[in-house]
């Protein structure tokens, strides 16, 4: 709930952002930072840290909110989202924000980078793990599939791909744009072990993440079925909320719904 409220406040204040995708990913991010990732804000460059790459970098507000929850950013920092010269750019910058591993944004960049991280860990005989969160529309970019082939070729069982399958991209529903089904089968055919989960059920996500690697010598893919805008009735499943900025009224109503939903 905090991640959703914080990220929506940030988008509202900045008058720019991607709240729909923030909300579909919120539970995944909370699961990662709350229960899975071995990261330490007091030692952000620890070579043995886990790597989390937010490949769907446009949902930076939810990433920053999650990083704040994990102690990498302060509440005051979050208020500078997209402000002039702020370190909190609309897309994350690893050279400005501790805890950010990759300068994502263009889409399709995170998984190749994640493959590189996982390879580095294998080379060093290290036990840290790499997690990459992609959007489903993002998977229309071919570079993801290049990386997918490479990950299975190199048996990267220290790599986990999480797909935020909210079925909506910028302009429309994904299946009206480019059909992405059968999504699970596609990744299996590329040599990944795939498990499907309710991506908005944080506990189910944690359990699934804990089970990785699902198979030795095989990269793991979590196909997380989510709802874009999840948690607020007037945001759910609406393409316009891909990058709609909430009005004052909408912000208040959303916060009220989220707080009610928590009780």
């Amino acid at each position: 709930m905090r991640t959703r409220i914080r990220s929506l406040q940030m988008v509202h204040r900045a008058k720019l952002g991607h709240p729909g995708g923030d909300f579909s990913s919120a539970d995944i991010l909370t699961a990662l930072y709350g229960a899975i990732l071995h990261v330490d804000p007091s030692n952000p460059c620890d070579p043995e840290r886990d790597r989390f790459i937010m490949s769907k970098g446009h949902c930076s507000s939810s990433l920053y909110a999650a990083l704040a929850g994990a102690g990498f950013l302060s509440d005051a920092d979050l208020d500078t989202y997209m402000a002039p010269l702020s370190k909190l750019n609309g897309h994350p910058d690893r050279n400005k924000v501790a805890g950010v591993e990759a300068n994502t944004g263009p889409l399709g960049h995170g998984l190749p980078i994640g493959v590189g991280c996982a390879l580095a860990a294998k080379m060093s005989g290290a036990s840290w793990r790499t997690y990459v969160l992609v959007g489903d529309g993002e998977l229309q970019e071919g570079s993801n599939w290049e990386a997918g082939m490479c990950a299975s070729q190199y048996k990267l069982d220290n790599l986990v791909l999480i797909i935020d399958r909210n079925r909506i991209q910028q302009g429309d529903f994904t299946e009206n744009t480019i059909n992405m089904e059968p999504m699970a089968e596609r990744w299996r055919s590329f040599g990944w072990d795939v498990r499907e989960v309710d991506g908005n059920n944080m506990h189910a996500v944690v359990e699934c993440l804990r089970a990785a690697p699902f198979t030795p010598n095989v990269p793991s893919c979590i196909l997380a079925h989510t709802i874009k805008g999840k948690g607020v009735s007037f945001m759910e499943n609406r393409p316009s909320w891909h990058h709609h900025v909430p009005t004052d009224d909408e912000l208040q109503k959303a916060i009220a719904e989220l707080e009610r939903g928590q009780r």
Partner: protein
Amino acid sequence: MALADERIVAVVNDSVGSAKLKGFQSKFPQRFINVGIAEQNMVGVSAGLANGGKIPYVCGAACFLTARAMEQIKIDLGYSNHNVRLVGISSGMAYGELGPTHQSIEDVGWMRIIPNMTIIVPADAIETEAVMEYSGIHKGPMFLRMSRIPVPDLFEAGMKFELGKAIRLREGSDITLMANGVMVCRALQAAEELQKAGISARVLNMSSVKPIDREAIIDAARNTGGIVTAEEHSIYGGLGGAVAEIVTQTHPAKMRILGVPGVFAPTGSAEFLLEHFGLTAEGIRSAAVELLKSR
């Protein structure tokens, strides 16, 4: 180098043979990654390897390495400022008859515009070795542009590479010839011919394209009669452009920029194409004479 620093790893795109990395591959198989014919993934992977503490050398034909993976180079290397060395082999028109799809005459131009990218174009095997040694300690992304057209050794074995410094290979005051890569030996030959006509030509090896030696350029503009640049690259955006940007804004001087004149090359071997485009000692000599006559 790889023996001394275990962080060094190699990444290729099915280019093991052409990158002459079979030795590395057999000696350090764990540190060798072949992503197959997938340049975007190749560069993205190198950024991830750098994140994981490695020093990746990404080796592939310059044409595919740069063009196909441009966004990864811009964002995952430049913007992210990762410690990756892009080794663009067979650059320029080295692939000759294989045609423009395999030629890389834009790469320096593209790379120049990317912030944080260091660009070096060595002139011979000795300078190449010196550049590689330097690359082991340089911080930040690099584009090392290698040709394949044979050239004689111009330097003393064991030379040390100095980033941002042009090397004055020949003194002269009537005109300055600036070149890099395979054009350097041709510039030196041109200077010999010019000397016979009583023209004293200064010759500078401009292997460090970014950062470039501003002082040497301004000195040439100020103290010689003009500047001729020559490169195995388009006339747009490469060494000539870099020099002109400085000259026009500091001490305007007449220039001639020799390169591939904004066209896709016709069929022909690499040597034939250099002749065809006047990228020869004779071409440089005559451009110099023409520049001096036009003043």
